[in-house]
């Protein structure tokens, strides 16, 4: 009886050793997976940051273009008025 129990204890000790080894390997595997995911998240975050900056530039440009558009519209309107005034003065407008 005692021999069987001692054998079971030895078996359990082996199981404990095996479990520990297995746990250690799993932990290492998890750490490597985690490190990979962290690298990925850093990469995508940097990419996102870059894109945000590009979008910021784009917005700024849009603002500039909006202002330019206004100026250009005024300029073209002014040019047209000048042209019409000139044509009117010389009676060149179609009647």
């Amino acid at each position, binding site marked *: 009886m*005692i021999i069987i*129990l001692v054998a079971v204890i030895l078996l359990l000790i082996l199981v404990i050793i095996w479990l520990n080894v297995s746990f250690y390997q799993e932990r290492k595997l998890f750490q490597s997976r*985690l490190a990979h995911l962290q690298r990925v*998240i850093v990469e995508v975050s940097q*990419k996102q940051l870059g894109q*945000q900056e590009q979008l910021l530039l784009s917005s700024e*440009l849009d603002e500039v*273009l909006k202002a330019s558009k206004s100026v250009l519209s005024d300029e073209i309107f002014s040019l047209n008025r000048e042209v019409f005034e000139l044509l009117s003065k010389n009676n060149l407008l179609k009647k």
Partner: protein
Amino acid sequence: MHFPNPCFMKKGALLLALLMAPFLAAAQDVNQLIDGLKTELSSKPDAKRTATIYSDLTWYYTNVAIDSSLHYGAKAVVASRKLGDSTLLAQVYSDVAAAYFRKGDFESSKSNYLTAYKIRKARKDYPGLAKININLGSIYGSRQQYQSAVKAYLDAIEYFEKTGGNELIVNVTKENLGYIFREMKNYPKAIAYIGQGIKYEEQNKLTDRLCISCLNMGNVYLEMKDTLKAMQYYDKSMAACKKTGDKKALQSLHNNIGNIKAGQKKNAEALQLYAESQQEREQFNSDLDKASLKINQAKLLINTGKYREANQMLLDIKKVFEQQESRGDLLYVYNLLVPVYARLNQPDSTILYANKYAELKEQLLNDNALRQTAELEAKYQTTKKEKQLLEKEAESRAKTNLIVVIATLAFFIALVGLLIYRQQRIKNRQQQQEFQLKSAIAQIETQNQLQEQRLAISRDLHDNIGAQLTFIISSVDNIKYAFDIGNAKLDNKLQSISHFTQATIVELRDTIWAMNSNEITFEDLRARILNFIEKAKDAREEIDFRFTIDEQLGGLKLSSVSGMNIYRTIQEAVNNAIKYAEATAISIAVTLNEDKIAIDITDNGIGFDQDKIEKGNGLINMEKRIEDLGGIFSLRSEYKKGTTILLLLPNHA
């Protein structure tokens, strides 16, 4: 101290050994001590002193009155137990054992010594254990348990030899051991051990000890039938005993030498020696001892044909033995009386003593058989009980072992369970962490995709705007060259539209350049600025332009926003120098200043008085861009001494 007589050995009584040594003290002194102790006891001292007095009385009475010794011994045991003083208790048991030994009750003596032994062993009192071993050796010797006796003596000798300083005890114990070997008929060892004792005593001139040791050695040789050597040692013993006046040893010597002489048919000498022995023993021996010693004389009378004298002597001895119930000696007397009466031609008496001899012998044999049977029975019962005890112990041990093993097993099972549970928890947590990270990545990627789409739309939009602006410039230029416009106002307007559109396109291209570059280096910035300068040179060819970059910063990468802001600032500064300062030399130097990046833009233009002018949009925008990057913008200008703009930016690399 042994005084064995080869003719009649009462083994138990003779093995007094060391135990007897203390009793050689004067009896008178002992009585005085006892009286003193009793007086102290009557004054009712405290419990500890009372117990000690009982113990001392036990010891001193041993040599005076055994019954009193045992009486006080019992009281001492009770008092010591009450006190819980194990040292005193062990001493009391030893004293009681000594009293029993003195009484001749070896079984009780042994039992008490063993109790004392147990207590001293628990207390690790090794000197006490060694002394008990000596006494136990004497008891075992008395009980003819020679193996145990040898072991006990050897243990004691080993201890005393190891500790040193106990030569006398060691040598006396060796002599006792020699006596045991003599009993075991192992004469060489007996001679060796007694010889060692004699040598020590001769060296230290212990005459009283030599008297006894040489007597014992002579007895060994006598048993070996080596009468010459026996006589040598008897002579040595005689000389020593005469010096010390040890009459007990002398009577033994006279008797033993008489035996040798009788063996040599020197009857006259033998009778003379026996007579001397008898005289000496008259002084102190008991009737029984005297009678025992007379047997030798009777034997010698028979051998010399003096049957009537022998008959008378034997009848006297017989009375003593009958009174004392010494049946062994009586048997010996009957055996001698048979041939004596036969020689005296008294057939009735011959038959009577022959019958008495036969009857007593049978009785003794029966008694012996009964004793042996009883001893065997006792031994059997003891063995049986011991076996039962051992079985119970083994059973109990097995149970304990089983419990221990089961407990260990339970512990290991619990440990395995705990490990698995803990690992499962860790695994769940890991999966949760992994899931959270993956979710975060997926979310960011989704956002990135959305941003990518927005950027794509922006790029398309900007491309369209670029194309439209180019179309406007192209249309304006076509109008200008296709028609001869004499109106200066119209011509200026067209020129203004063309310039403004071109400036917008430049702005558009610069931004698209920054947007398309994920990372911008100072080298990229230099190329871009040089490109800008080249275009500026179309208007002002005389400008000397220099752009230097610290080697350490050559590879430094800036984000698109940072790069764009720095580019716009430098561009604005260079543009101001060309347009308003009328500078002929512009230098840009990018250096590493401790942990900051320093960009120095210097021109040799007309400069201005910083206190008199108000900052325009250009300067405000430059300052704002640098502050957005966490940097410091500073401007230094003096009229006709040029302008220096210093940008200090944090070095994130």
